[in-house]
């Protein structure tokens, strides 16, 4: 070992060999022509649960077409960034799930296959789909770049045992009744002078859930998040009134536990209803959690509106929630990718998948299946088809959710630790509005 350079090159060789070996060992998802990659969002109780429930459908697809599917289930926290990297590098899956509120942002990247021609044909045309769900596929007036896959909608779920104890016969219909019932359901059960059972629970620290309520409550009060010219109007009077109704549940009506201000995951509020710590909640699909905990004492009702029988925007109970499916434009295997999109939106698979994820079919042909005739599914279906409006179909939707949701999160935090005045609400929304305007 006299020559230092020899030693050095030997060392470098060893190091690069180690690197090379490990490189071969991992990440080798061989892209053969009869295999496509599918990124699925987390729809089950865990990543593995989601994969297990998707597997029978994918097996049927392979059997039918001979195309193998390389499935990767990605958690919601990672999915957006993974899509970002895929878009940037042009190196992504062939087919992927997206949150339908991201559709316009992703459409603008131009990285996804427009739903026309072969793709439109494969999914059987837009008339097969629920109108509301289909409208989330992209910006108005442009060819959509995603098709609906799973439908979801907000409903009110409540603990029937607590209702019975409080002597409430039927679920509240109007917001006024809702608050009154919630007050009856809020009580001190252990005699320490502080309430430990609450009328209502929500994930006060969940940015996206908060932004949905800002949107829904705003519409019910006659407001919108954006005016006709696309300028943000977060701090308009009806919008402020709507947000105030929601914040007041904790701040003034005192029917919501201050500790809810800390809940960031939806499952925690579901636990509150299951454990009898709270009576009512707004949720999209708590059934899998109910089932996992063996909870039976629940019932479902529409989200309360300001007036019974309200229609149009005033009758909004939910945004058009759901998960869409996109085909990656850079796919090396577009033909098979399109086949998978067609297969997953077929009537039979819509029945199978939405049944196992307790979501709603997005094609009218599947809705009539026996699995979707329970009162719960019918209620969800009614909300989705007749009482929901898509979140604003704009490219900055993500930012809008973050700003409005965070404003409400901070207001709940303030309510939990002190008082919230009308001016506070107005100021928080105004601040969010300014940031939105600056970002546009």
């Amino acid at each position, binding site marked *: 070992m006299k020559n230092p350079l020899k030693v050095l090159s030997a060392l470098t060789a060893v190091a690069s060999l180690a690197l090379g070996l490990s490189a071969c060992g991992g990440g080798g998802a061989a892209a053969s022509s009869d295999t496509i990659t599918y990124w699925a969002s987390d729809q089950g*109780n865990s990543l593995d649960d989601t994969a297990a429930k998707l597997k029978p459908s994918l097996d049927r697809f392979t059997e039918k077409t001979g195309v193998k599917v390389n499935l990767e289930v990605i958690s919601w926290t990672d999915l957006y960034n993974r899509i970002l990297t895929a878009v940037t590098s042009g190196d992504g899956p062939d087919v992927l799930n997206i949150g339908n509120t991201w559709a316009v942002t992703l459409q603008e990247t131009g990285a996804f296959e427009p739903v026309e021609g072969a793709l439109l044909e494969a999914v059987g045309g837009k008339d097969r789909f629920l109108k509301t769900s289909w409208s989330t596929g992209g910006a108005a007036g442009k060819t959509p770049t995603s098709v609906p896959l799973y439908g979801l909608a907000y409903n009110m779920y409540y603990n029937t045992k607590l209702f019975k104890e409080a002597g409430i016969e039927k679920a509240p219909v109007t917001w006024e009744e809702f608050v009154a019932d919630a007050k009856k359901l809020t009580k001190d059960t252990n005699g320490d002078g502080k309430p430990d059972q609450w009328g209502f629970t929500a994930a006060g620290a969940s940015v996206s859930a908060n932004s949905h309520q800002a949107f829904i409550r705003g519409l019910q009060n006659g407001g919108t998040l954006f005016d006709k010219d696309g300028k943000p109007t977060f701090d308009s009077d009806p919008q402020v009134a709507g947000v105030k109704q929601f914040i007041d549940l904790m701040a003034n009506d005192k029917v919501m536990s201050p500790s809810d201000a800390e809940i960031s995951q939806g499952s925690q509020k579901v636990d509150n209803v299951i454990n009898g710590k709270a009576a009512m909640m707004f949720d999209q699909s708590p059934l899998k959690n109910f089932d996992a905990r063996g909870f039976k004492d629940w019932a479902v009702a529409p989200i309360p509106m300001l007036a019974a029988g309200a229609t149009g925007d005033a009758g909004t109970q939910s945004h058009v929630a759901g998960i869409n499916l996109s085909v990656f434009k850079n796919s090396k295997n577009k033909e098979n990718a399109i086949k998978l999109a067609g297969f997953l939106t077929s009537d039979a698979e819509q029945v199978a998948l939405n049944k196992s994820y307790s979501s709603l079919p997005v094609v009218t042909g599947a809705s009539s299946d026996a699995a979707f005739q329970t009162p719960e599914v019918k209620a969800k279906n009614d909300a989705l088809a007749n009482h929901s409006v898509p979140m604003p179909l704009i490219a900055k939707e993500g930012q809008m959710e973050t700003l409005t949701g965070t404003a409400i999160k901070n207001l709940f935090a303030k309510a939990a630790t002190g008082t919230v005045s009308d001016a506070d609400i107005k100021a928080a929304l105004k601040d969010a509005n300014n940031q939105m305007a600056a970002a546009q």
Partner: protein
Amino acid sequence: MIETRNFRILRNVVLTILSLWVAIPLYVVVSTSLKPLKDVAGLFQWIPREITASPYLDIWTTVPLAKYFQNSLIITVCATVCSVTVAVLAAYAIARLQFKGKRAFSLTVLSTQMFPGILFLLPLYLIFTQIRNLTGLQLQGSYLGLIITYMTFTLPFAIWMLSGYFASIPKELEEASMIDGTGRMGALFRVILPVAKPGIIAVAVYSFISAWGEVLFASVLTNEATKTLSLGLKSYASESDVFWNQLMAASVVVSLPVLIGFILVQKHLVAGLSAGAVK
């Protein structure tokens, strides 16, 4: 310091407080990992009502933890070995050889410590993409990409510690060896490295710990096939359900290899640091 009575009392008080401060969170993790899920939901119980090993069994099926474990092991071990190798070479040059640009090199390497990770998360990905496009070398989603990323992250501190350590070794040792005809590199391998063992261990531990726990870059640079253990931990707390007991059990499992290794080499670590970095 001199052990007067006051000193001993003060020592006992301070060390007890510090021990509690360290111990309480660790106790919370371990005790929660042994409770059934229903007991985790309510008010925290210091003494578990019921002890169960089932979270430790369930973690392997809720999330493919065994595979993540394997990924993490490969990535971390490779990154550590490579980082130490590269650092040894560079540190030796800095500590022993005179060359033009030495100061610039040292300063540049060290200045990278001030880059916020956020600043180059996307650029790094873009560069990897360009490399892939130009050479076909797959750096995103492969072990290789994460290995070279992690080894580079730990290089500056490693080079700095090792060069300090090497500089503290008397030159006479090497010179004797070089007179025997081993050449400079021979001297490095036969004389310096054995003597510098504590320093090298300290650097290896630092590299291993940094790579084992990293999540930000892993979340962008891995895919399902190469996902790491620390990243896998997040999967126990999904939007739809939080398995606190499993999360804590998995945390214990993830931490154990680091802790065991750490305890084994901990003596060398202090010796290595005291002679190398801390002068």
